[in-house]
């Protein structure tokens, strides 16, 4: 009752009292009071269609059930779309049969080029210097006739730019057993590819965030000694990442999940995110990434395991690195919003958060018609500095996600918020 009566006042109060506390950091993340600047998408990597039936089943699942439950803005697939083995062990394709299967799965799910952004990996490039099979069979290759892709998502609160870059080599080298040959994986970005990347980055100077996806890590030996990386074009590419304030480089290739920050030759660094393989990994098959008030958050997830829980606000100040240079601090306010996305095909009966491992779990409320849940943390007595927020959800199973944030008593919201908190919660 109290909330309804004072609703217009509350809206004004929020904006007047909360906005001054916004803490802009790095590439523009800010602590937004509500959920109207939140979107999310799915990341699939290393689908390796053709390796075995599991790979096909996992992609089918991802673009049907997972897609329906998560309802992402779009799906990114950063390569090794096919395995190039046709069920064997030694990569020696391309095999049209693998591409036929890939197409069949996606077309069967009604996937199109406005929603699904697939780019080539080294397994799609062996023995194919001109990416003939990728161009003739992939979703984006067929739609655009190119190997690199640029797309924009426009919202009332701003424009977001995404780039898919073609990191496999352009020499059509076959797979090899020899480290001195980079196993035939002569990855890199050549002059033409870099010109495209630069042109697209320059097109959207007003983008709130720019996120880039590719198949390879920047450098070799990222996870294991056999992990290949870019062998040419890296320096020029990093210059562009730096110049255009790219917030994320997301890649696959290693079949392992790893969050990191890459700082070398960069002024601020870039969030350097490695996602495991949908086809070949035992866990962390895919990832959900969200943008909330320009703050990035992501969670790896396993095929068929629900719910998927992702805390989107406050932004995790340990995403990739502690402290993530793009993260913001939160005020010592009495009603700091906590937001989470909860995805589950079955009903989610309860979502709660707790602070610093406390036994006092506090309920969160679902925003009608969305997978977004919100709660408010009374941080007015929280000590300055680092705190852990955990959100747990009871759906198909009990699952949780946790993030770290930092309370900064110096943020001005401190004095403006107590009476607002009373209006909201003292009914």
């Amino acid at each position: 009752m109290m909330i309804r009566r004072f609703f217009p006042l509350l809206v004004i109060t929020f904006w007047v009292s909360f906005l001054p506390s916004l803490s802009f950091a790095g590439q523009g993340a800010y602590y937004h009071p509500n959920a109207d600047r939140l979107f999310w998408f799915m990341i699939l990597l290393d689908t390796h269609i053709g390796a075995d039936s599991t790979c096909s089943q996992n992609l089918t699942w991802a673009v049907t059930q997972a897609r329906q439950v998560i309802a992402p803005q779009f799906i990114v697939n950063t390569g090794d779309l096919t395995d190039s083995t046709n069920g064997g062990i030694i990569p020696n394709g391309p095999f049209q049969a693998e591409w036929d299967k890939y197409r069949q799965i996606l077309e069967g799910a009604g996937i199109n080029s406005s929603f699904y952004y697939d780019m080539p990996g080294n397994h799609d490039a062996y023995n194919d210097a001109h990416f003939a099979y990728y161009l003739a069979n992939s979703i984006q290759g067929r739609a655009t006739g190119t190997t690199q892709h640029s797309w924009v998502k426009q919202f009332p609160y701003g424009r977001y730019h995404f780039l898919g870059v073609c990191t496999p080599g352009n020499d059509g080298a076959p797979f090899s057993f020899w480290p001195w040959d980079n196993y035939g994986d002569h990855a890199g970005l050549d002059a033409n590819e870099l010109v495209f990347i630069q042109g697209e980055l320059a097109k959207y100077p007003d983008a709130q965030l720019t996120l880039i996806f590719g198949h390879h890590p920047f450098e070799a030996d990222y996870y294991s000694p056999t992990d290949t990386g870019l062998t040419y074009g890296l320096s020029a590419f990093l210059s562009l990442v730096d110049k255009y304030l790219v917030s994320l480089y997301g890649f696959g290739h290693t079949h392992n999940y790893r969050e990191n920050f890459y700082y070398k030759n960069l002024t601020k660094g870039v969030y350097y995110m490695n996602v495991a393989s949908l086809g070949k990994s035992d866990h962390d098959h895919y990832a959900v990434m969200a943008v909330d008030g320009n703050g990035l958050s992501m969670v790896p997830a396993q095929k068929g395991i629900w719910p998927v829980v992702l805390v989107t606000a406050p932004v995790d100040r340990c995403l990739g690195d502690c402290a993530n240079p793009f993260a913001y601090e939160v005020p010592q306010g009495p009603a700091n919003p906590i937001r989470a996305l909860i995805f589950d095909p079955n009903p989610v009966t309860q979502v709660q958060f707790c602070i610093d491992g406390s036994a006092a779990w506090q309920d969160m409320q679902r925003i009608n018609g969305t997978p977004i849940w919100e709660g408010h943390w009374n941080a007015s007595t929280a000590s300055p500095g680092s705190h852990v927020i955990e959100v747990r959800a009871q759906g198909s199973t009990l699952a949780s996600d946790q993030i770290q944030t930092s309370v900064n008593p110096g943020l001005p919201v401190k004095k403006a918020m107590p009476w607002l908190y009373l209006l909201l919660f003292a009914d």
Partner: protein
Amino acid sequence: MKRLLTLVFIILGLVLGMSFAGAQTAKELDRRGLGHFGKAYYEAAPRQDHGKAASEYSQAERAFQEAIRSQPDWVDPYLHLGRTYFVQNKYVLAAEVYRRALTIAPQRKEIYLQLASALEMAGDYEGAVGVLKELRAQEVDDRSIRILDDFIQRLAQRAEERLQKDQGGGKQP
């Protein structure tokens, strides 16, 4: 004596000339074969134009075979013919050609890989393991040996799985 020397020079010239002409012909035939292969594998096949692909593959095979006849000690047309067979799923033929290529150029390590790949796709896992073991015996680099061991192990596992499946299948009524 003078006549004899003249005769020797004429014969030598003829042999060298024929050899050079053979090499030129082989190169031209190989180049032509690659053109047909490219049209089949990179243009027709990915666009599901099976008729054109078959025709181009057939012309590629003929060109590479003629190149081999023209200059049997030149390894490149063998590799191209092997690849042409391989991409048409003619794995046994591909393996045969790669074996011949290995007798000509045993130092070319990539031929072992191609041969092992053809044998694997033909279902001859033991044969593929044997070829990779031959290659391993020549390797001195530890990292290469580890990679080869991994592939050998996985191929041997496939062989074992098939053996068990065959034995299991034999017990079925």
